[in-house]
């Protein structure tokens, strides 16, 4: 404020002559600058307007519009697609639980030290390499078609079941790496303290290391969950009647693709809030770390 006093400019003078009481702090900081906002809005309008213009001007647009953006078809297909989407959500929740558990177990295999656990460690390493390297779609097809074809007695034969197994196996490979990065990020001193207190390796993991590690990786795990929510749709290729499959059934009957857009909209309605929530958690986590300083 002293610099303002020493350099009286027109702006400064205007502030002084304003009606604001002298006791009130200057409000310059809280003023919103409109120019950048206007520029952003204008550029968005220009870019998308141009794209829309060219799309709408194309020769095929009226046909595409009928086939993809048919409101009546959307309304008609909505109940079936929604029912399918509900199945998506159920599969999603089941997968989150099974992936969270299986990946945690794999992580334990991976991080336990000592010659006794060497076979488990090797298993976990090979597992992650293998399942991270195979496309999830391929796993879904192999499991859902392959295993029931073996006709092993007492084994479930539903495509839904084996599809969930395939997704779990595939995503657990990624989740294991996430868990492990969280464990690696826990300071070595914590391990030394746990050991010095007499905790065994497993006790140290359970009571000292894992609670901190999981807190570290919650945002990353939720990110995986967002991706998983969409990938559940892969099960549609093995005949699971999820949103995508229902949309496809409608399309096959009517040759109208609008049902797919219904499915897309349903996915967006759930993933966007979820993604925002992850962003929020990540930001909060970063702030916590900055505040917490070094311990």
């Amino acid at each position, binding site marked *: 404020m002293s610099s303002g006093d020493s350099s009286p400019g027109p702006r400064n003078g205007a502030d002084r002559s304003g009606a604001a009481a002298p006791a009130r702090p200057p409000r310059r900081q809280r003023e919103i600058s409109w120019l950048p906002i206007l520029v952003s809005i204008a550029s968005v309008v220009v870019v998308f307007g141009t794209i829309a213009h060219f799309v709408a001007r194309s020769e095929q647009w009226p046909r595409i519009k009928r086939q993809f953006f048919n409101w009546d078809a959307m309304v008609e297909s909505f109940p079936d697609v929604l029912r399918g989407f509900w199945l998506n959500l159920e599969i999603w929740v089941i997968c989150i639980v099974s992936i969270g558990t299986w990946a945690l177990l794999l992580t334990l295999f991976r991080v336990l030290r000592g010659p006794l656990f060497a076979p488990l460690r090797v298993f976990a390493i090979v597992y992650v390499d293998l399942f991270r390297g195979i496309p999830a779609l391929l796993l879904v097809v192999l499991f859902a078609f392959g295993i029931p074809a073996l006709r092993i007695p007492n084994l479930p034969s539903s495509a839904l079941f084996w599809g969930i197994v395939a997704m779990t196996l595939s995503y657990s490979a990624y989740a294991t790496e996430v868990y492990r990065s969280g464990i690696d990020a826990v*300071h070595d001193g*914590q391990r030394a303290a746990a*050991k*010095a207190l*007499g*905790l065994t390796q497993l006790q140290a993991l359970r*009571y000292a290391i894992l609670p*901190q590690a999981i807190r570290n990786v919650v945002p990353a795990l939720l990110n995986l969950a967002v991706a998983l929510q969409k990938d559940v749709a892969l099960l549609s290729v093995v005949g699971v009647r999820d949103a995508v499959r229902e949309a496809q059934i409608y399309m096959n009957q009517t040759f109208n693709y609008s049902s797919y857009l219904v499915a897309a909209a349903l996915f967006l309605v759930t993933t966007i809030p979820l993604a925002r929530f992850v962003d929020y958690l990540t930001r909060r986590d970063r702030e916590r770390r900055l505040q917490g300083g070094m311990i």
Partner: protein
Amino acid sequence: MTRVVVDRLTKFFGEKRVLDGIDLSIGAHEVVALIGASGSGKSTLLRCINRLVDFDAGRILLDGVSIDHDSFGANGLYRRIGIVFQSFNLFPHLSVLQNITLAPRKVHGVPRREAEEAARGLLAMFGMSECISQYPEQLSGGQQQRVAIIRSLATNPDVLLLDEVTGALDPELIGEVLRIIRDLKDKGMTMVIVTHEMGFARDVSDRVCYLEGGRIIEDGPPRELFSRPQHPRTQKFLERIIAAGRL
């Protein structure tokens, strides 16, 4: 009575010999300070004594029994020898009470109520009762370190190892931690202290060992070692310390 005997202890980090035939014996209720420059091996020696790190040759005896003897079981040694670290290493997700009761409850099977009762007693004894339900990040460095000391006392150890426990503290917080260590000395705790606080080492310890290059160069009562060091290397080290205004 001799509590801890270190006998020709040798340890390598790769090619480097960090401990080179250390001989040291520590009597019950004795307080021994280990001093020396960084890298002299004093912290490693401390961590060998409670098997936080393994050594390559020599032996360490606790009450005449080798510390790797089966009779200690998986965690018996850790109950009898506690350690406090420079960086506190409290568990940040656990409250003060949970930090203190974790080892008694999970490692030694003390019932929860009993463990908490004991923890309350210890906190009261060291004037820390008001921190009981707080989390480490809510405490000052000095308070955290005092909680860490209490945590290591919760299993009733016979020997306490202190590894530069004031090294990470602001100067004005060092006093409260040193006071607790003095209290422990008065209560008869056997302690091995690695420290850079020479004044404190002189005041609180019964014996001071000067380490350099993984060997104990000089070993004597603090008055003699600090005022009339015999070995030229000890003299040189202390001259540097005095020049730095640390004594």
